[in-house]
């Protein structure tokens, strides 16, 4: 076997694809580990922060991975996250008639069940708007970019409307606000090893990977993205597959919303998550998915989300001004896709 052939063989292996991305992750990490002064970058505390920060992107990126594999895109994820955040805060502020006829907060009556209700409502709302995105794309046959560009504005407006264009402050701290609490500095929570939100993410990663790899729906997602005509010919329910994929993005955005709610201090901020769609899409693309569909993996996406977060946080700790950070992240996105292109053309 010649050297060139060996490399071609190697490059076509899936583990090599993921391996190369892990390598990139390690290089980016080492870069900051070396250059951030006093080894501050690789302290346990900072590592925990990286994981906490990346969880929001990564969770939303799970849904986006499905969407991009079907050759679609969802620009509304940032807005859906804000919607979830606002719905949670709004629910925590619901008041009911108390025993003495005066208004009391529901959350004071039911300190555990009310946040749960908040989560369910947020999941329902987010999945519903995701489903509507999908329905518009499938029924009206409008390209996903346009539909979600529109719904990005509509959903953001909805979030602001629910919050009356102000931040909603819940009357009480609840478990949902503590989802992303650090576990290193907090003795009471150190038994969890990682913040609860991160555990949620880990479970979601396992489930999403499983769905994509081992279920009929997962195979259909790849088929629709690789060649929609073929999928139709083979009896794949193309419309339904797309519908589910966008609804799934809504669902994961709701989970990302809970993490965001906790991360920003338990406030229902309708302006949160602006520009997140770009970070989320970047994570998926750096993770090896192709805009033309049929390619992508959950593990790759997670690595992509970590790379983005490390660049972001590392840049901050290096004392780079914000404008430099933005340019670096932009450059990395282009670089990642360019390298992928090169790899593909060598393969062909």
């Amino acid at each position: 076997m010649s050297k060139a052939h060996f490399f071609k063989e190697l490059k076509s292996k899936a583990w090599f694809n993921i391996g190369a991305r892990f390598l990139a992750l390690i290089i980016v990490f080492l870069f900051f580990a070396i250059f951030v002064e006093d080894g501050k970058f690789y302290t346990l505390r900072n590592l925990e922060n990286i994981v906490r920060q990346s969880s929001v992107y990564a969770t939303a990126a799970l849904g986006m991975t499905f969407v991009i594999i079907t050759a679609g895109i969802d620009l509304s994820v940032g807005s859906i996250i804000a919607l979830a955040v606002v719905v949670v805060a709004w629910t925590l502020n619901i008041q009911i008639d108390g025993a003495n006829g005066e208004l009391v907060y529901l959350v004071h009556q039911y300190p555990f069940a009310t946040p749960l209700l908040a989560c369910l409502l947020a999941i329902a709302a987010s999945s519903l708007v995701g489903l509507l995105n999908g329905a518009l794309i499938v029924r009206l046959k409008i390209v996903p970019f346009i539909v979600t560009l529109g719904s990005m504005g509509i959903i953001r407006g909805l979030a602001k409307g629910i919050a009356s264009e102000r931040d909603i402050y819940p009357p009480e701290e609840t478990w949902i606000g503590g989802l992303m609490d650090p576990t290193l500095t907090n003795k009471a929570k150190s038994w969890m090893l990682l913040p609860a939100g991160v555990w949620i993410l880990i479970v979601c990663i396992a489930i999403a990977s499983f769905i994509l790899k081992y279920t009929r729906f997962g195979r259909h997602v790849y088929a629709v993205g690789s060649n929609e005509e073929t999928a139709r010919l083979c009896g794949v329910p193309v419309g339904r597959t797309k519908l589910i994929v966008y609804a799934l993005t809504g669902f994961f955005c709701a989970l990302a919303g809970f993490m965001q709610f906790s991360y920003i201090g338990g406030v229902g901020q309708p302006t949160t998550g602006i520009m997140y769609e770009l970070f989320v899409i970047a994570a998926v693309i750096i993770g090896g998915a192709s805009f033309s569909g049929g390619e992508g993996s959950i593990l790759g996406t997670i690595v992509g989300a970590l790379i983005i977060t490390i660049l972001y946080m590392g840049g901050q700790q290096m004392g780079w001004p914000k404008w430099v950070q933005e340019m670096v992240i932009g450059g990395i996105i282009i670089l990642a896709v360019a390298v992928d292109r090169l790899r593909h053309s060598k393969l062909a």
Partner: protein
Amino acid sequence: MRGIHKRFGATQALRGVDISVHPGEVMALVGENGAGKSTLMKVLSGAHASDEGELFLDGEPYTPGNPLHAREQGIAMIYQELSLAPHLSVMENILLGIEPTRRGLILWDEMKSKAAAALSTVGLENLSPKTPVNQLSIAHQQLIEIARAVALDCRVLVLDEPTSSLAAKDIEKLFALVRDLSEKGISVIYISHFLEEVQALSHRYTVLRDGETVGDGQTADASEEAIIALMVGRSVDDLYPRSQRTAGSVVLETNRLAGIDKPNTASIQLRKGEVLGIAGLVGAGRTEFLDIIFGLEPIASGDISIGSYSGSALPALRWQQGVGMVSEDRKTQGLALGLSIADNLTLPKLDGLGPGRLVIPSQQAKACEPWIERIPIKCQSARQPVCDLSGGNQQKVAIARLLHADVDILLLDEPTRGIDVGSKAQIYQLIDSLARGEESEGRSPKAVLIVSSYLPELLGICDRIAVMCRGQLSKAKPVEDWDEHQLMATAIGQE
């Protein structure tokens, strides 16, 4: 071109090719898919550089650095997939890159007259140069490409499988044009799978096999069999197998079926254990007919019954009813090229590849192995992406999908278009054994409905043939009652 070598990684695509073409000569370049024809032409047109060997143009050494350079030297390529800008007008396409300008502004009058001149050389005097290209038929678009080559003053014109999407009438026109151009002193390199075309058109031929020149000579002196033998390295004695088959009960029936646009009326009765062919011109409504049966296009009137079911259905239901289809264009419709053989092959029937609704990749691959072996599909493993395979093997994957789904009725739309002779022979064998009932579990004979523009193929493998002409499907007659002439006459409505 002398002693051309080209390697891609470990693949030696060309290992010593010599070809020459004289001014005003039509030279046919033939060979199976993967023989190196396309690579050779890419070297000629400057898209790839050769590793070894020399090229001469008018006796001068010629080393095209890139396609633009080759074009300037008068070498024009017309690829199988047309490369026109669909939204631009005919004249903008013809003069693309060489627009007459003054100080950067386009001289539209000159543009129009130049385009008109080029159009008249290809026999399209009546076409307005302002027509947008996407309003033209494929045949006309191809002529526009040739007109573009003419406008560039080309001296060597390379036509890569130019007739694969043309109907017989347009093919005749194209032939006349090629002869005309060659009389004007333009050299034509004509790449084709159709040996009849080679016989009809070329002065000389060159055969490539596995990246080498294995034979050349005057076309007039060579028999078709001799050229096939050179192409495949063995003689294809019996390309078209048709063993004794017995037609059983009717499994698919359409009754005055009509689509939104085409066909207007099509009635057939397809029986178990028979191969029924549909001949006709491209655009007569044959593809639409199959699409309607399979539920890819709506029914306007008439009905379809399949076994005990009747009425319309979506493809998913058709698969369940035991119907499978191979679509006409494997690249845009038939296959998900980026996905693996296993994914493509098992897509219509993912049950049984894991517990419940789960699909286990290793079981998917395992389910493909018998087909890969039996058909056979040349590949490294079932996990290999389909785009790595040659055209013939890709097509075999599309057909194997039907076998995996264990269908009883096979709808095949141009199943052998653009694939090499060896693969064709294997596909014909497969169709024959399916109709006899040898490939299925219960050994029950299948019914095959095949659309093809290649008449020898239909006459070779079918039991009965019907002809589609302008949306009207003729009565199916036994193959013995047809010959190429009658088929063609019926197809063009002169019967």
